């Protein structure tokens, strides 16, 4: 199974939001670059094949993009060229990089699931944000992350 969004779909989507800037990244390309990055840094990190863009990124405050692992670093490199003064936070665990940020609450995977990302969350997320930890290991087995489980409206 490969990912699910094609160019035609994106063109349609763009036409629904005229005037909104779209930045398009190719997940296959990002994955390749992430593998090179991981190899170059001599890390033992295995770069997973991911389903969706938000398998390795999400918003973690009003203006900070959270990314995960070598995939996250590769994504940051791609976005730096496109965005004006982006703020990023990269956590070591890909699985910890998908959080729900809403109403000044950051719902994220628990420290028992991803202990290596915990310190960065505590240090780098703005202090006014309330942290909530949940476990989601079961749906993660079928590539489910936290944002996948809801649509936020109004």
């Amino acid at each position, binding site marked *: 199974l490969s990912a699910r969004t094609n160019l035609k779909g994106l063109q349609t989507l763009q036409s629904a939001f005229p005037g909104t800037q779209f930045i398009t*990244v190719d997940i296959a390309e990002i994955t390749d670059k992430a593998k090179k990055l991981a190899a170059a840094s001599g890390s033992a990190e295995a770069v997973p094949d991911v389903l969706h863009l938000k398998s390795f990124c999400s918003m973690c405050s009003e203006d900070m993009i959270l990314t995960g692992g070598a995939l996250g670093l590769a994504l940051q490199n791609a976005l730096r060229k496109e965005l004006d003064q982006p703020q990023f936070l990269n956590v070591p665990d890909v699985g910890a990089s998908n959080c729900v940020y809403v109403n000044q609450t950051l719902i994220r995977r628990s420290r028992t699931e991803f202990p290596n990302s915990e310190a960065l969350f505590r240090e780098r997320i703005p202090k*006014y944000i309330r942290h909530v930890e949940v476990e989601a290991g079961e749906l993660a*087995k079928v590539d489910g992350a936290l944002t996948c*489980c809801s649509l936020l*409206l109004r």
Partner: protein
Amino acid sequence: MQLVMFRNVKNVACHMRNGFGTASAPKAPTMNVNHFQKKIALTRDIDESLVKAALTMQPGSQQTVDLELARKQHTKLCRELKWAGLEVHTLPSAGFADSVFIEDTAVVVGRTVVLTNPGARSRRGEVMGVRKYLRDHFTQQDLSWEDTIDIVEMPDNGGTVDGGDILFTGTAPFEVSRSCMSHI
């Protein structure tokens, strides 16, 4: 740009009227509209067939899912959304193995909800239940303009989008992933 600006201005008006803006948040950055301030979360139950038929990157891994534990974890997530001040509405899973991942069926920006054409054929029917729910609850004549949404349908032209591929960064930039895709 004009259209988006217009929408934002309307949204600000709505926030102020409801006393729902960023004023109560002393340190939060103020923007013309806060896309991370929401009132409603739409979720979906986990279907029993998930353990047999959910799509996955690693074939077979769906069978290792502990359904009961998955539901417990999911319920906790919904409870936390409630604690975060959201009204949580849960739709039935309608027999779709992947329908718990409701994010993929729509892209929401402000008042506009684009119903997607999910990339996996087996998931396309999931959109029906979401469409019906949104129509029934957010498009009635007696609602004020701010409480309604605009539902946009994707034409059936071979284009596919999964909501999980769209990251809305809140301000102007809107980021999208494309995959080197297979099935159309």
